[in-house]
């Protein structure tokens, strides 16, 4: 089996108008989904979650606040999984709550 990184992106991480119950439901969705991958023994590591603020450094020393200007979706977090092939790794990504939030999952094999 090879290692793959699943990167989660969402257009929106603003939960200020989300009720406590809804937040709990979202949390449960993530936990159940990652738990499902772990139950298959395919979770390599549970990556850290990224905070909302950030900076972008570009050529010529240009620094901008965050990566949010040019890309529609913002990277939220990632996990490492193991799978036999890119197709299998993609199958694991099904059901990811980021997709329910109009986001996406990018599946990338790791070198080595």
């Amino acid at each position: 089996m090879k290692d793959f990184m699943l990167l989660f992106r969402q257009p929106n991480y603003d939960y200020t108008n989300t009720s406590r119950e809804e937040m709990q439901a979202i949390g449960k969705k993530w936990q159940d989904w990652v738990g499902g991958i772990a139950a298959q023994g395919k979770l390599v590591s549970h990556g850290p979650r990224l905070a909302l603020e950030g900076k972008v450094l570009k050529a010529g020393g240009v620094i901008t606040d965050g990566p949010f200007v040019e890309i529609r979706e913002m990277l939220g977090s990632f996990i490492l999984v193991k799978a036999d092939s890119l197709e299998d790794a993609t199958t694991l990504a099904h059901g990811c709550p980021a997709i329910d939030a109009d986001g996406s999952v990018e599946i990338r094999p790791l070198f080595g």
Partner: protein
Amino acid sequence: MEKESLKHLFQQEFSKMVAVISKSFGLQHIEIAEDIVSETFLQATETWETKGLPQHPTAWLYAVARQKTLYYFRRNKILETKIIPELTIMQEKDQEAQILNFSDENIKDSQLQMLFAICTPAIASEAQIGLALRILCGFGIDEIAEAFLSNKETINKRLFRAKEKLRTEKVQLELPSENEIANRLDNVLHVIYLLFSEGYYSKTQNQILRKDLCIEAMRLALMLTEYGRTNLPKTNALMALMCFHASRFSARQTVENTVILYEHQNTELWDKALINQGLYFLNLSAQGNEISSYHLEAKIAYGHCQKEDTPAKWEEILQLYNQLLLINYSPVVALNRTFALYKANGREVAVIEAEKLKLENNHFYFILLAELYKNVDYEKVKRYLHKAHSLAKTQTEKQGIQEELDKLG
């Protein structure tokens, strides 16, 4: 004294005496310590049979063991002084005065040090459990063989190799240093956990032996809670976990001795005192930031100690399993997590998730699948139970599955 209680006394004193003698001799002579203690018991059985039980049996045992040890020590010393002339008479006397202190305090210290010595990472875990059963719990070789469903020769070889390792790795009878103790404690806790599991999920049908294994594991963990530097939240979490499990020990066995599923257990047989004891340790474990797998497992076990079969309870258990899987994957945890998923999120979700597990060599996997298709697809239930029956490892399990099949008609 009856034969059973005599056996019990010997088992109890074995670990104390071996620990104290090894402490004086050095761990490399652990086999001599074992021999001396065994000889002491033999002499006790013979003497007590004819002369009756002494007023203080343990004091009698300590006195005889001391005699035998000193005899051996002196004789051996003579040999050594011939070979190693540097050894002065002064040193000999010093050592003699210090050795074999059977005070409660020294017994306790020696046993704790022995626990850490045996749980050295240098020894493979299977050998550690065997050695722990022999040296720390005073089990006989035949009992250990029975617990492992193995034979005496295999166990003897395994123990011999483990002791050899203690020698070659020059493991000392001492507590690890302050900054090392937390690290080494993990291994100690793990061995105790395995010891308990060996009893709780044992392959052997011998109920007394199984209960003994569990009690001994709990006794060792209790010892760790009584010592400041090892009395950490995770130690208490392990203790809580064992109390909760042990509370259901009687309920897990039916009259016919088949292991029964949690759902069919007679809750009246649960030991309420042990559940309360578990709660006491669970509260103590809730300090600090570390959430060990023992914390999660203890909370899950506590959930199973509650009769109420509510969705909220299963939701909590599911999330605990989700967390546990992130720390510690095992097929058993994966299967239990899927059962909790079924109870919390419903059958349809659980079926999809269960089929992804693909634990095709695990009979519990097929028992779970059969459970998920119960009252839904008769043919599938039958097929899965047959599959489970063919994969089951023990007669007890096969019998239990057969009963389920018979119920189907």
